[in-house]
């Protein structure tokens, strides 16, 4: 409907904090909702978001994150990161933001392709069984570039 020149969005999620995962998810889902194709390539710590055992335990970083407005020493105390994460999740729930697992289901059902990075998966000694069932495959970065197969494709590193 809109006249946007953006036709396809490719995201590389390299970080394992909850705010980065949600950034990728919201943008990828938002693209699909606008009729734009989208795909996510999970690499390095971004793989935390597609590991069955870890994906519901992503946290917000309270150390080294000036925007959290907390003294670094306080942020490092036991339980502080968990508390900050709990508070953030509560706010997200109010906005009807789905939890990570459900968000991945929504993305997959919406036609957003989800890819695991072969190199990082090998490096972390992960098996296919460790990863979500919605994963479309384990590919190389070269394979991912090949997905940029049309005019108006954009690639974003998170």
């Amino acid at each position, binding site marked *: *409907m809109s006249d946007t020149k953006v036709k396809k969005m490719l995201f590389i999620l390299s970080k394992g904090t909850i705010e980065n995962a949600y950034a990728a998810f919201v943008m990828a889902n938002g693209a699909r909702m606008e009729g734009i194709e989208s795909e996510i390539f999970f690499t390095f710590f971004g793989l935390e978001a597609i590991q069955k055992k870890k994906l519901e335990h992503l946290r917000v970083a309270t150390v080294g994150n000036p925007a959290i407005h907390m003294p670094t020493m306080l942020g490092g105390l036991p339980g502080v990161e968990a508390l900050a994460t709990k508070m953030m999740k509560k706010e997200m729930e109010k*906005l*009807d933001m789905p939890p990570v697992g459900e968000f991945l*289901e929504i993305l997959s059902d919406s036609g957003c392709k989800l890819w695991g990075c072969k190199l990082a998966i090998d490096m972390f000694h992960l098996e296919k069984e460790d990863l979500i069932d919605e994963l479309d495959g384990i590919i190389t970065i070269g394979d991912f570039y090949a997905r940029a197969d049309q005019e108006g494709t954009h690639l974003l590193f998170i």
Partner: protein
Amino acid sequence: MKKLIAQREIDVNEEGYLMDFNQWDKEIGKSLADEHDISLTDRHWEVIDFLHEKYRKEEPLSIRGIKKSGVIDIKEFYSLFPGGPLKVSTLIAGIPKPKSCI
């Protein structure tokens, strides 16, 4: 602005969404669907009924809400209303475009 839909003058905004839901009826819905190359089936109407119900209750629409609707799943929603399902379906249903990012 005014737009001729199903031989009637209808008030729409710059994106083509109806300004007044009272001007909507099934003929208008069909005509708007035609513009998006969608021919409405019973399944489409079930979804439109659901959207109207949410609109009447003033409940915000989101893709997660569709998943939880019990009326339709997300895959079918995308296949029934290609090219941005919430945007397209609300336009056909004569209700405002959802403001949520999710």
